């Protein structure tokens, strides 16, 4: 399966899929689509990435953020320091190999994604309760946003579904591919 073309294609397709899935998510209220479908599409993007590269690489590229930082030197001005930090974490990433650079890895675990999704979905419903109405009573913003349509708590709910589905599939696939 691992032909070079496919592998390369997947590498570029994955972000595209992600964007597409988010589009599907928001479109869902008016056209076919929605949180499930969006979440599944988004996760399938990663699934293929995992199939092509292995889960470790996928985690590396998409689910963790390494933040480099360094103690502030005496002679550096605050602006200089900030600049260094920003540059070290963006275009100069690969040069941070000197020992005075420390790094910290932030990892988005699928479980957290799941929890966050579930939390978002539930909490979007709880807003109804907070307003003294029944659970999940919809609350809509007046303005309409192009492409997406109107925004409201059901949209949030759908986003929660999206995150949960994605987290669930990723968790499955990561767990299994490590076997």
């Amino acid at each position, binding site marked *: 399966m691992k032909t070079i073309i496919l592998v390369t294609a997947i590498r570029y397709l994955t972000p595209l899929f992600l964007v597409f899935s988010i589009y599907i998510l928001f479109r869902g209220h*008016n056209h076919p*689509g929605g949180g499930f479908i969006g979440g599944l599409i988004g996760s399938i993007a990663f699934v293929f990435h995992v199939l092509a590269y292995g889960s470790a690489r996928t985690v590396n590229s998409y689910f963790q953020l390494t933040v480099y930082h360094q103690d502030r030197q005496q002679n550096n001005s605050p602006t200089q320091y900030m600049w260094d930090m920003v540059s070290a974490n963006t275009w100069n990433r690969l040069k941070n190999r000197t020992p005075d650079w420390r790094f910290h890895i932030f990892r988005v675990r699928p479980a957290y994604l799941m929890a966050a999704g*579930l939390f978002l*979905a539930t909490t979007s419903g709880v807003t109804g309760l907070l307003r003294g109405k029944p659970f999940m009573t919809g609350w809509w913003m007046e303005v309409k946003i192009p492409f997406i349509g109107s925004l409201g708590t059901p949209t949030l*709910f*759908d986003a929660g579904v999206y995150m949960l589905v994605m*987290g669930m599939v990723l968790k499955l696939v990561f767990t299994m591919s490590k076997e």
Partner: protein
Amino acid sequence: MLYAIVIGIITATVAPLLHRTMGRFVVIPMALLPLLLFIYFCTFMPEVVGGHAVTQQHVWVPEVGINLQFRLDGLSLIFALLITFFGTLVMYYASGYLDGDPLLGNFYLYLTLFMTAMLGLVMSDNIFSLFIFWELTSISSYLLIGYKQAEKDSRVSAWQALLVTGLGGLALLGGLILLSISAGSYTFSGLLTQRADVLQHAFYVPAVVLTLIGCFTKSAQFPFHFWLPNAMAAPTPVSAYLHSVTMVKAGIYLIARLSPVLAGPDIWHYTLMTVGGITATLGAVLALQHTDLKAILAYTTISALGLMVTMIGIGTDPAMKAMLVFMTAHALYKGTLFLVTGCIDHCTGTRELSKLYRLGSHMKYSGLAASLAALSMAGVIPFIGFIGKELLYEASLSSYVLLAVTMLSGITFVAVAIVFGYRVFWRKGEDKTQLQHHAGFPLYFPPLVLAIGGLALGLLVHLVPTPLLQQGMRAILANPNAELKLSLWHGFTPVLGLSVLTLLLGYAVYKSLTVLHYRASTLKPLYRYGPNTLYHMMFEGFLHHAKAFILWLQDGYLRNYVMYIMFFFCGLLYFILWRDTPGIDFTNRIYQLHEIRLYELVVFFLVIAALIFLLGTRSRLTSIVVMGLVGYSAALFYILFGAPDVAATQLLIETLTVVIFVLLLHKLPAFTYLSHQFQKYKFIAISALFGILMTYVMLLVQQQAMSTSELKEYFGKTSYLEAHGRNIVNVILVDFRGLDTLGEITVLAVAALGIFSLLRLNPERGGKQ
């Protein structure tokens, strides 16, 4: 009266704690309780003797008719007094008998509970609260009989007693419920006023049968008598208590209590007389065959109980009188003899008749007690036993059979009395048995009190017992004017002659006891057909068959389980469809076939072909792919019939399933062929049945479906206007029925959790990540 019960229960519960803190002195509070209760009940005496019943009502669960309604009339008071009086002595006796036992606290717990339950039983006016106490006595006697829990014998006997009386208890429950339904009342007093209804109700016979089964098991009547001799495994104070005034007398009490309600129809009288007669005879005959002192006593108890039941069965005034007096007398002497036996057992380490001689020289007081009790048992003037026996004969004069039964028991009692009162303690000529230790005060004092009580009641028969017994008799006969006059001396009547004859014959039997015991061994094979053996056979048989049955049913084959379920489902549904015969209009359907588009037909055949292929293939990969194909086809159908969201979801999920399979493929079992041989056709048959059924249901429902639903219209109307979405399915998912979706994503989350722990938590790998 409620407080008496409550205090009893509280005292019982704290007994183990008291034992822990006070050591052997725990006996003080424990014996004090029944004593105080005795005094308490004595205070009711004037009122009850005056003919007034003391009543108390406490609401408990009126919804099911159970209230704590207490009613202390003559009968109840007799029992209450006996129970508390004996209770005091037994508690005290136990402190000597079980001295130093680490579980003494538990013993007192059970015994006090037992006593309290008995008290509650005899005081209850509400039939269900009586039942509650009834069951409590069963349970607490179970714990008491099995007190020496380390001995297998003890455990088995306790279990037997529990199961037999438990069986009776359930029958009784049924009987009582029937009674309460037929009378529309839950109290004995209510039953009495509704007597006419009860007698005419269709429930009368079942109620009588069930209630009597309950009483018979409790009172050790034939054929349920076998548990009582086995219950000897209990410590002797318990046996004494059980046999004299509690437990077995509970059945007698209840029969007597119900007698005014249920007596009348022949079935009542004849059942009681027959069962009582058989029991009395059987007990008497068996008592003579045993050489274990406790066993002898146990069988005479059975015999005595049989006599009492017979008397209630006769049901005349003299019979009731006889029953009451005999019961009191029996309680006193039987209690004494048991306690003495316990003392002998304790001091010599044996209860075997052939090993006990001339104990009187060591144990004067015990011997004295035994002799006094034996005289009462033999029915010698001026003991109360004499009066009892006279009355028994008088009551059974009406029928020769009854008289013979009574005589037989009487003769046995005389023989047994001689054994206890003379043979064991005083007979000269043999080497005396050596004691292991001397009997302490607690061991001989209580029996002595009881024995003297027997004498005193006989001498003072006018003073104390008569008025009380009269009230008891009135309660049984439900006749406030029934008179009971007791006197020691009746003059020279035929009955007196019978008494003397009994004494003579009894002596003769005593003389031939050795021969009888010798002969008894030849009767052993007969016991194989006795109820005890029967019980054990049933017990073992039940266990054996239960095991075999469950092994057969729950055989561990998943496919069998699935098959049973499917059979049940299909059978039920086929039956209902056959019964209701909802028809399907096929002409219309055939007409509809024109509307089929070609591509639909192609997909349809594709699925069918894929399924057939799936049945034959032996490759894992192929079957996964084919399965995916079926899934995609389903998605196609969803698209074709206006469900794009479902279709997309189905497509994606099918893809994911395939991916999961692929990820795990090399870990999945290879596809070696496992044939089912003969079973195959069975499986095909049930699958086909199921498939056809589901098809039929679908066609049927399709035909009958509502053309449009309220929900559809409402969602169509409000989806955009109120829920701001044009895709109705999505709006339903996230808004109208968002709660479903919430549940559904929870399922997904849990599935992921489960899979994670399933794969990672692996005992073979030490359960580490």
